[in-house]
């Protein structure tokens, strides 16, 4: 059974804190993604990675960075958390190439106070 796991389901942080969100997949997928999901705005792509050590900006990368040191792990970093980064964060992975479905993790609900 395929699996994408995220380090926390719920997280509460203070403004200005550095926040790490971890994502691990056990499917040997090349591609990994970070989204945020907000009411009325749908899923928005923050960053993605086609392979280890590679990263690409998505639609809303400002205020975020990522790290992909190992194939199975993709980390999202909020360098200095702000209240407008309160959101649901979803990680996903898929195998490389075309016509391949994307598998999602359970999400991390981050609240920045």
């Amino acid at each position, binding site marked *: 059974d395929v699996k*994408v796991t995220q380090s926390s389901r719920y997280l509460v942080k203070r403004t200005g804190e550095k926040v790490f969100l971890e994502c691990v997949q056990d499917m040997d997928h090349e591609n990994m*993604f970070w989204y945020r*999901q907000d*009411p*009325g*705005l*749908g*899923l928005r*792509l923050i960053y*993605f990675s086609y392979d280890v050590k590679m990263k690409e900006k*998505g639609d809303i990368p400002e205020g975020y960075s990522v790290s992909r040191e190992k194939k199975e792990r993709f980390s999202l970093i909020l360098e200095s958390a702000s209240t407008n980064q309160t959101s*649901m964060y*979803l990680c996903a992975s898929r195998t490389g*190439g*075309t*016509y391949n*479905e*994307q*598998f*999602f*993790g*359970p*999400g991390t*609900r981050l609240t920045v106070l």
Partner: protein
Amino acid sequence: GENVGLHLPTLSVQEGDNSIINCAYSNSASDYFIWYKQESGKGPQFIIDIRSNMDKRQGQRVTVLLNKTVKHLSLQIAATQPGDSAVYFCAENEGYSTLTFGKGTMLLVSP
């Protein structure tokens, strides 16, 4: 997420009815489409996909129809059950690009 259903169009059906959820996509060059289901507090779950060389694809109790002429995708759920209550959204993809997601539709099934 817990409140992902806010601000979304809602389809309310009775248990046992057939449901049809629609999606208009934007890119005429998209060649791969996916339907996802998202229950409250959970991540999106793959339901069914279809490539642009097909008009229809069937799964278990679900059928996806693709009309490329008008850039329209629909998801049909047969004999809808209370467990089908969730937010459903479509996603489109062109070649090696990233997925583009629709805003979603909330499906509410009454017993």
